[in-house]
């Protein structure tokens, strides 16, 4: 089926890409700059401070390790939801995407317990520089997790109607949603050792 906008689904002959693919990678490039700037801020703050606490003295390493495993697993289930659509299995897609969204909830729940424990002990972003950059980095990351979950829930729910009319376009949407979700996992892969272990 031809679309009003060319290369919505079919690839451009010169680049070999369709619009969604290029669009999501350009967006991820901007996200790299966003988190990169904050990481640079973290480095500057850390080396510029005469004293800097080791992350594990303030933060909960076991909980964060569990969260790391949760996000890595959700990346696997996300890619499996996409391969389910390649195999034309909508039921399997729903299962894997449901698990992906569910694991996102697990991540958020663990973060809720982490944050509320900090606040309960009066450890706030305003308490010291370490906590300020910790809450900024993990808070922004958490917002990205929520955003990704909203998109995934849409694709699982009302968005999946597109499977009946435009299966290829829907499959591509799931693929690029996966690319964003993997990026969110990637940021956490760096956040976890930098903040919690060092």
């Amino acid at each position: 089926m031809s679309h009003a906008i060319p290369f919505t689904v079919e690839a451009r002959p010169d680049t070999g890409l369709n619009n969604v693919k290029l669009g999501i990678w350009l967006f991820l490039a901007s996200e790299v700059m966003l988190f990169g700037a904050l990481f640079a801020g973290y480095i500057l703050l850390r080396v510029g401070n005469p004293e800097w606490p080791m992350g594990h003295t303030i933060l909960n390493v076991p909980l964060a390790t569990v969260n790391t495993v949760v996000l890595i697993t959700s990346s696997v289930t996300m890619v499996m939801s996409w391969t389910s659509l390649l195999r034309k299995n909508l039921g399997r897609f729903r299962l894997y995407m449901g698990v992906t969204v569910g694991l996102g909830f697990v991540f958020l729940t663990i973060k809720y317990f982490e944050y509320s424990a900090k606040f309960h002990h009066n450890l706030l972003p305003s308490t010291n520089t370490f906590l300020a950059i910790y809450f900024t980095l993990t808070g922004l990351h958490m917002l990205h997790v929520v955003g990704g979950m909203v998109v995934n829930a849409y694709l699982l729910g009302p968005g999946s109607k597109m499977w009946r009319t435009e299966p290829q376009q829907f499959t591509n949407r799931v693929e690029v949603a996966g690319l964003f979700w993997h990026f969110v996992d990637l940021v956490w892969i760096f956040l976890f050792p930098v903040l919690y272990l060092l």
Partner: protein
Amino acid sequence: METHDDASIDKHVRTYLAVFGSLLVLTLLTVWVSTLEHSVAIGVAIALFIATVKAGLVASYFMHLLSERKVIYGVMALTVFFFLAVLLLPVLTAANGIGS
């Protein structure tokens, strides 16, 4: 993924599961190494090295970067260049004053 027939999908799924296992092992390795006694500089180097390997696995296989088009490599190369600039410019500017 160029071909989407069942056999090639099965092969890719096996790859994804292998990457998953590697990521779990590397996560546990990161935590274990952090418990050993070493200087902060060594700790940072090891932790970031393992994190880069993990990130590389996610990018190459889950995000299909290994089999992507040249245009995407171009976008990524540009991003890496500017990311390094954003990372290094402030740090190098202040480097002379650090510790004084």
